[in-house]
């Protein structure tokens, strides 16, 4: 009888070209996504004068540097224009398909891949971006790599890896209304720490994970890197297959059916082994926000920020002092007493149609007390939201409705949070200066950001949902 295998083992085995005695494996790459930041790697190809090995498996997007307002044809800022032009030129030179600014399918790489059906179950996917873990939501083995590795993949369509330890995170039970995938993943990170899964490949399992929509699973896997994991994945199921059917780059007709048959075997066999197991109870997860400068600094909204004076561990107390000082929050302050200056809804974590609907459900008929920006994850999502009238809800609430891109998640396109300003944000990193030098970021779900906008301070969305369809 065959040894029972988990999904991580199965995906690994399907891509292993060879394993050296020293434990290094050479893996085949099915999809390689590139973006403006991949210029270092294209530069190495140019230095060596070599082509891209498999241009038909390589796809480019313009997302990190693209403006969300003003003309996108004629980018006013010359540095941004140069970054966008660079990815256009590099992909054109090597015959790589680009979803550029003139393409209606443009958007954030981790949104576009699944949306176009480029990301499929059973694939090995890499990209020079740490949030490549997102694509695991469809049952792919997907991880972020550095520029040298991007160059290696461009030249060989393969990558050297050592098989990571395998971890299963099971979330069972039922999340209550107002509790989203973001709350689940922030709870996991708060529980295991920002390095709790370092080097591990994670399978997310359990009834609460199964119950998540594909959008929710994408949010979940997106943030597995914030727990240090190499990748995170959810075994594909009927929901996955339904999501993929009819997507432009997914197999069609009989080929799709045959693929579904094979994808259906991509699950963890009973009695297969994991190197680590963690379980959480979904019933106990409340809407959660971050208060500090690491995603692990997350607490349920009815809590208070820690008080360093009550922390016995000196190093930890120091950390708390530093984080609270940067965030401009008094020790022990209640989370709901923290006023915000601005909100942002967007990023590869939470900018899909379901995210926009969740925020709009809260904002409908209400106004935001603070300014803010909403940026859909792709130009197609933007269009769909407009067809559904969601843009009107955001605009009527007083928020800005921008074009699609990474935008205020990292601010390198110029969408910055001002120094000292506090932003309630649907993004994935509350690092110091992440949204701009001196910016203070609180991470939370789209509905919770909407609640903060309405209240003008961090707030529990649940009472605001009373009598509304969500």
């Amino acid at each position, binding site marked *: 009888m065959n040894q029972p295998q988990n999904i991580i083992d199965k995906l690994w085995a*399907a891509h292993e*070209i*060879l394993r050296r005695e*020293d*434990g290094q494996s*050479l893996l*085949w790459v099915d*999809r390689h996504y590139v973006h403006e*930041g991949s210029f*270092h790697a294209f*530069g190495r190809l140019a230095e060596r004068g070599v082509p891209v090995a498999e241009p038909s*498996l390589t796809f480019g997007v313009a997302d990190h540097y693209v403006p969300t307002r003003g003309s996108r044809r004629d980018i006013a800022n010359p*540095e941004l224009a140069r970054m966008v032009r660079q990815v256009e030129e590099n992909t054109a030179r090597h015959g790589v*398909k680009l979803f550029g600014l003139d393409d209606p399918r443009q958007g954030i790489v981790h949104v576009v891949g699944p949306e176009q*059906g480029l990301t*499929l179950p*059973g694939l090995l996917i890499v990209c020079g*971006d*740490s949030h490549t873990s997102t694509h695991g939501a469809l049952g792919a083995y997907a991880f*972020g*790599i*550095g*520029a*040298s*590795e991007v*160059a*290696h993949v461009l*030249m*060989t*369509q393969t990558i*050297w890896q*050592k098989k990571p330890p395998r971890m299963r995170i099971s979330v069972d039970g039922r999340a209550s209304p107002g509790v989203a995938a973001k709350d689940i993943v922030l709870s996991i990170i708060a529980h295991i720490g*920002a*390095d709790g899964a*370092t*080097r591990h490949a994670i399978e997310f399992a359990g009834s609460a994970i199964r119950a998540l929509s594909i959008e929710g699973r994408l949010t979940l896997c997106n943030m597995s*890197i914030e727990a*240090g994991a*190499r990748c995170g994945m959810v075994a594909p199921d009927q929901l996955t297959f339904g999501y993929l059917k009819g997507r*432009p*780059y997914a*197999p*069609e007709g009989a*080929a*799709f059916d*045959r*693929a579904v048959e094979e994808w259906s075997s991509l699950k963890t066999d009973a009695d297969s082994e994991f190197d680590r197991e963690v379980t959480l109870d979904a019933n106990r997860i409340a809407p959660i926000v971050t208060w500090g400068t*690491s995603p*692990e600094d997350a607490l349920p909204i009815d809590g208070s920020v820690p008080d360093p004076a009550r922390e016995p561990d000196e*190093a930890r107390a120091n*950390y708390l002092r*530093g984080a609270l000082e940067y965030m401009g929050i008094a020790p022990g302050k209640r989370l709901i007493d923290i006023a915000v200056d601005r909100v942002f809804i967007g990023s590869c974590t939470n900018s899909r149609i379901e995210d926009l609907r969740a925020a709009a459900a809260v904002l409908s008929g209400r106004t935001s007390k603070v300014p803010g920006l909403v940026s859909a994850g792709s130009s197609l999502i933007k269009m769909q939201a407009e067809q559904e009238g969601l843009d009107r809800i955001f605009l009527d609430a007083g928020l800005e409705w921008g074009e699609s891109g990474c935008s205020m998640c*990292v601010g*390198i396109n110029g969408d910055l949070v001002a*120094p000292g300003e506090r932003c309630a944000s649907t993004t994935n*990193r509350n*690092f*110091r200066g*992440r949204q701009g*030098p001196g910016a203070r970021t609180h991470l939370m779900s789209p509905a919770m950001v909407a609640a903060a906008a309405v209240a003008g301070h961090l707030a529990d969305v649940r009472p605001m949902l009373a009598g509304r369809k969500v």
Partner: protein
Amino acid sequence: MDKFTRLTGRACPINQTNLNTDQILPARYLKWTRAMGIGKVLFQDLRFDADGNERPEFPINKPAWRNARIVVGARNFGCGSSREAAVYALYDYGIRCVIAPSYGDIFSGNAIQNGLLTAIVTDEEAAEIMEALQRTPEMPITVDLEEQTILCGNRTYKFSIDPVRRMRLLKGWDDIALTENYRDRISAFKASDRKARPWAIPEAET
């Protein structure tokens, strides 16, 4: 890639857990090429305040550690963004080795690609080395990759590193050259994989 065997130099302690790559190199410098001098903006927002004045309390600004070749850090050093430019910034500043209890996965992979050693010690050992450096900032540290030792004053610490990574640093190996040796195996895999998983090829555009 430069080889790494043994290094003696000043070591700068930076006692911050989860020191992410956004802190090592802020995102606004990601459009820079290496030729533009990325080493100059290493730790930019930790080293300088909003007006561009040096923060004297940040360790690498202290006279004894300005020319450090080694950084001693805390748990989860280099977590976060995959930006390899964070490694370029460290390397081009002159840092050749980081000593810490654990690293961001992608960061330590990037480090090896560029000849930067990421040595792993325990939390207690990292704390001890940092304390010793606080007492005697000018004290040089010797890191020996063959022996896997760190010599710090009269103490010697063993450090760990993945054996493959150790070998690559010692030899200055280049991944691409290594992969070239397996060209036939790759082609064979590709051919049989195309038959086994036809659905893995993206549908051509219509």
